């Protein structure tokens, strides 16, 4: 925590400068990095390790959600936005209206783990079943071979990139014409930790979280694209070989083609040292 605070304090100072002088191109050696809560721990670890590589660059990292980071990039208050999804067309349009052409870089991959309470006997689900659970068609665990208990659906808030990804790839199964929505009684929790806490203590709950956030106190369910299988549990291997069906790219987004210290930082992130940190934190490296 003290190290985190040290990273955030320069962030506050920078925020002051940026407010006075808009535009990410601040002349000093600072980098402002904000966005996805999924990526925030990884981004902090990178920023810390980068101090060894380039001590003169100070990087401030904050979370808040992919939407928050992209909004900040569009408003010109950050150098790099972290996003667990690609930009929406309306964000793209808003950026262009502000004279910014965002460029996305895949910096890591992530599996979305489906988690349930360890006392829940259900240990495998298909994407179709997940879609039916979250859209409200399945309401009791007994319909899925579990105990006669109500299903309590947990999700991240709508500003989370993970929420949007889950909606598009699981509820709607990647079909753009599909207009399935989350059941209104889905609990929208403000943080990944909130989901883990509730799943840990509540045998009725089902939730989803980035693989990096899964703790040993919850049970990870094996997932298959269709009922014939194979049912795969999320891991670095199963994401790399493409077997785990709910995996996605994580992005860093810059305003225009990166130059100078932003470019140097991004090149370092693509390199072996930074990608080793990716796997240490439970994410999946890009190479």
């Amino acid at each position, binding site marked *: 925590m003290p190290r985190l605070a040290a990273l955030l304090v320069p962030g506050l100072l920078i925020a002051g400068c940026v407010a006075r002088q808009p535009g990410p191109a601040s002349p000093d050696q600072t980098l402002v990095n904000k966005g996805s809560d999924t990526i925030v721990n990884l981004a902090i670890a990178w920023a810390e390790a980068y101090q060894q590589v380039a001590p003169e660059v100070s990087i401030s990292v904050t979370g*808040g*959600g992919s*939407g*928050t980071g992209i*909004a900040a990039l*569009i*408003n010109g208050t950050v150098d790099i936005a972290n996003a667990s999804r690609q930009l929406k067309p*309306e*964000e793209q349009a*808003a950026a262009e209206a502000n004279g910014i052409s965002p460029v996305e870089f895949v910096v890591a991959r992530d599996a979305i783990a489906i988690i349930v309470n360890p006392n829940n006997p259900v240990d495998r689900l298909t994407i179709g079943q997940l879609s039916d659970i979250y859209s409200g068609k399945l309401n009791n665990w007994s319909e899925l071979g579990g105990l006669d*208990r*109500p299903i*309590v659906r947990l999700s991240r*808030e*709508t*500003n989370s990139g993970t929420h*949007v990804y889950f909606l598009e790839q699981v509820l709607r199964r990647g079909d753009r014409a599909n*207009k399935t*929505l*989350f059941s*209104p*009684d*889905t*609990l*929208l*929790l*403000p943080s990944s930790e*909130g989901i883990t*806490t*509730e799943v840990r*203590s*509540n045998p*009725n*709950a089902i939730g989803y979280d980035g693989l990096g956030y899964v703790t040993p106190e919850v049970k990870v369910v094996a997932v298959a694209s269709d009922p014939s299988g194979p049912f795969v549990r999320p891991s670095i291997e199963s994401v790399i070989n493409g077997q785990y069906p709910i995996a996605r790219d994580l992005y860093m987004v810059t305003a225009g083609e990166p130059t100078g210290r932003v470019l140097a930082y991004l090149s370092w992130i693509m390199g072996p040292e930074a990608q080793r940190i990716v796997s240490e934190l439970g994410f999946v490296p890009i190479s």
Partner: protein
Amino acid sequence: MSETTRSEFVLTRLIKAAGYSSILFIGLIFFFLLREGAPALVEIPLGSLVAARWYPIEGFFGLLPLIGGSIVVTIGATFVAVPLGLLTAIYIAEVAPRPARELLKPLVELLAGLPSVMLGFLGVVALAPYLRKLLDLPTGLAAFTGSLLLGGIAIPTVVSVAEDALDAVPRTYREAAKALGATKWQIIWRVTLPAARSGVLTAVMLGIGRVIGETMAVMMVTGNAPVVPTGLAALFRPIRTMTATIAAEMGEVAEGSVHYHALFLIGILLFLISLGINLLAASVVFRQRTRAERVLS
């Protein structure tokens, strides 16, 4: 002489300005809310606002679940805070021996200083799992949990204001009642409480105001599911309040978007609800005073 009058002039004006500044602030806040929120009424058809689904990222802006959620939690919290708060105030002001009273008053005021995020954390970790097991609910993250927590948050407000009001009732009232042979309970119920009625009512209204505006604790423990509450069972289901919606979504919206305007519209609603509660309190207090004056004259 002229020195004194000049400084008096300056001081009077300063105090006057301070007094009027709160009106100015309220006016500015309302103007700002109106400017940012009113476009939502044009952009979103009324039929879509008075609908049962709130899912802003897909363009669903139904406000019913949010208004309903706030109402359910507020009613629940009022049922916790008002009886407990008033009883505590009566005990402190009327019954408790001096040492207990001197211990209780500062403790209650200390309770008022607890940050609500801390209570919310306790709610998530301790209260919600306990209530789920105790009441056999699907999940402990429900309106009821929020009501208990918010009730707890509002109790110090109710106690503090109500106790002051009871304390301000002249001792002669109680002595006169005692001389007529009234028991302790009769004095409290028939003399002190009615005499302090306007202050007690203010305490209740301030407590309700505290509850409806509370955000952090409620966002942590009510589950934030935008379901329209129907019937008593809704108290034991997850709900989503107006305040939690603003807090959870404001950080993410693009300035000037429909969603942004819709969130400010919720702000206007909250403002009007608080204003309504205060006007109601003021009107009741006012009616009470005129009747008292009539009796005295």
